């Protein structure tokens, strides 16, 4: 099996509500897999179970054939999974480069060291990561004063710090301007290609989804209802009904992008 990530009948219930219902899928090496669906479909819940923020009610998660169900986020991270958040999470009292150095300190097991100066450690490697995401010229700026799009880039650099085999991105381009979205996703796609990484991401921007994903899964009310490449999903009547919306406007718009 070539699967980087595999879920088996993953389920999460909150009281009587079944938020995620028997979701099974597999993610191949080097693949960019998009998970789409209307709000409340269970995408973020699914994500949070993969990374360990939520405990699954039942079902299993495997990372490269090793079961990781129920592990805490920091343990999942150690296994080689990086993630970015829907609402950015950065260390606001630190500089840009220190945000990245923090992840490197953790990766190299330096956290419990009391003597060295933290800001001198792994500085070159952090600069390389910032270069990768195009933030190197802002390395010493205070994180709290940056624009939202820049914070997203920093998050990406943080997520890449331990060269993960799998990257989970929860709405990576939400809240960004159209130009920034394209830039960020092209950047992500390039990094994934270069490093042989796999990506699972949720997204509402169909431009982004159709342009950059190799495969698309659609969720609705906790269930996977469709799976396929961009053309298949675009033409799937069920998907059009619950998510994309019907009408010719959409298809013609997509056609003009192609």
């Amino acid at each position, binding site marked *: 099996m070539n699967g980087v990530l595999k879920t088996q009948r993953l389920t999460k219930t909150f009281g009587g509500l079944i938020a995620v219902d028997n979701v099974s899928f597999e993610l191949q090496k080097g693949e960019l897999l998009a998970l789409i669906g209307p709000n409340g479909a269970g995408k973020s819940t699914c994500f949070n179970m993969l*990374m360990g923020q939520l405990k699954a009610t039942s079902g299993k998660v495997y990372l490269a054939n090793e079961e990781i169900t129920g592990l*805490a*986020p*920091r343990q999942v*991270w*150690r296994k080689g999974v*990086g*993630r970015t*958040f829907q609402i950015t*999470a*950065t*260390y*606001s*009292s*630190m*500089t840009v480069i*220190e945000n990245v*150095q*923090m*992840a490197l*300190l*953790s*990766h190299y097991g*330096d*956290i*419990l*060291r*009391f*003597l*060295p*100066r*933290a*800001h001198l*450690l792994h500085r070159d490697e952090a600069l390389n990561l910032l270069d990768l995401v195009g933030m190197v010229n802002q390395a*010493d*700026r*205070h*994180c*709290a*004063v940056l624009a939202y799009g820049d914070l997203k880039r920093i*998050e990406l650099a*943080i997520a890449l*710090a*331990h060269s993960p085999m799998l990257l989970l991105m929860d709405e990576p381009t939400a809240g960004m301007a159209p130009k920034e979205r394209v830039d960020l996703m092209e950047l992500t796609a390039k990094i994934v290609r270069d490093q042989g990484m796999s990506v699972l991401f949720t997204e509402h921007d169909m431009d982004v989804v159709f342009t950059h994903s190799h495969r698309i899964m659609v969720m609705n009310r906790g269930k996977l209802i469709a799976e396929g490449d961009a053309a298949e999903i675009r033409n799937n009547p069920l998907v059009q009904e619950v998510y994309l919306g019907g009408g010719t406007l959409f298809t013609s718009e997509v056609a003009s992008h192609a």
Partner: protein
Amino acid sequence: MEFFVAQIITGLANASSLFLVACGLSLIFGVTRIVNFAHGSLYMLGAYIGYTFMQVLPGGLGFWSSILLAGLSVGVIGVLVEMLVLRPVYKAPELFQLVATFGVILVIQDIALIVFGPEDLLGPRAPGLRGVIRVMGEPIPKYDITLLVITPIVALTLWYLITQTRVGVLVRAATQDREMVSALGVNQAWLFTGVFGLGSALAGLGGALQLPKGGADLLMDFHILAPVFVVVVIGGMGSLPGAYLAAVIISVLNVFAVTYLPQSTLVLMFIVMIVVLTIRPYGLFGREEVAGEHGQVGEPERPIKPASARMQLLASGLILLLAMMPFYTASFSLVFTTDVLIFCLFAASLHFLLGLGGLVSFGHAAYYGGGAYVAALLVTHVNTPMELAFLLAPLGAGIAALAIGWVCLRLTGVYFAMLTLAFAQLLWSLVFQWGEVTGGDDGLVNIWPSEWLKPTIIYYYLTLLFCVGGILLLRHIAHSPFGYALRAARDSQRQAESTGIDTRKIQLLAFGFAGFMGGLAGALFVFSKGSVFPNELEIARSFDALIVVFLGGVKTLAGGVAGGVFFKGIEDILIKFEYWRLVMGLLIIFVVILAPEGIVGSLRKGAERLNLIKSRHM
């Protein structure tokens, strides 16, 4: 059985003022997010003002009007405090308002002393309610029965006000989302003022109502504070039924404890609190606090950097000056400087936790006093040599901090703060009531250093070495990977946990380390004074450290030390005057209003504006 019922009735009666004061505090916190340390002072004022009115107004009508008037007057005082002291500092960083309310405590203490005199006042009996009623053969004071009736009426009225009226809707909405409420066009300033006034009036009412049972004295402000915090936390922040139930539980248990286990009275409520919070982390009726959805108030904290060459030179000069001190000053200034140094180490240890870790401990005196007591107990009971006791003290404090931190870190925000306070009070109560071992109120005396360390100059150097060393170590660790991880856990626990950092472990270690350093300060203290008393463990001591850290500047590395020097220095000058608390309180309030980012933070800003230093806030 009869006795049992009588006990319960007494407990219920005692619960009444506790409930009133507690729901006032809870209300104020819910809406304004201010932990009002001065709430006990408002309660005290209620008692004094009620007493004064009762002297003038005759008869039953006079008595009850006095109680109402006391409530009203304290409400007005609350409104004034809110408008004059708190309004200017709402924009300051979170919890900074604590410092302002602490200033209010000091001011009210001295005003009460000036206006009402130092004697304890015996509360007048309620006219027409002097006797007792026999309930199942047991005598119950009529006044207790009256209280039993009044409290539910007040509680129901409040409940009606909060749940059924328009004002109540606004109050509840503001408790959940202040920004939204103000975006909807509600004048937030007046809502805050109104709620603060109402909360204060409740405290005043509570103070006046308990007059026939307890009277009025100048210590009642701090004495009520701990039980009130406990009640609010057990009941759940912002919950009226919770506050009532908790007040009843605490009061009834207390009545039984007085009868059956008198030495446990002080400890008991903290044990109840710890048990409740272990089972229900947010109190009986409380909900988990949702962390501020709108980001932190005020300017974000700046990145830290190791001291520049200029600052290092300045610090070295200062240390040199301190080291040369025995050559140019008299020995009493050495004693004073010793005190300041110890206090600075104590404050710096709290700053480490509070500033870098974002862990607001209300009970840091537990480790300072704890360290002092570990040393004193070792010397007194097992004849430990001073040097060994001195080394074991911080170790003991550190271990205590690890244990306490392990429990407290299950909670966050104000519940965490209250639980740390509870543990500190638990230690204080143990020391206070376990007289055979700890000497109780008489403390432990004759705890002197070994012969070779006895001379003032030598002990001064010992203090200098450990305090400066300790402070520099704390500062160094702030710049180490561990210190960075501690700040990362504070800035974004989500991101830290998702990048492999065990934030709870980091915080726990920081808690233990801060406790260790606090214990070191305590050990230095006990051998410099030769004695230790329970007041080194009490709330006021914890508050001292807290105030100093905020005053100096939470968001600056040097905040703890700068605040410590300022606070001790001023205190030393002022304490010679009769009404030093008044001046000190006013001074604190002024600093809070003029320098809302703390002394160091505001100085830095001023210097940046004048282009004396480069801004790091690019």
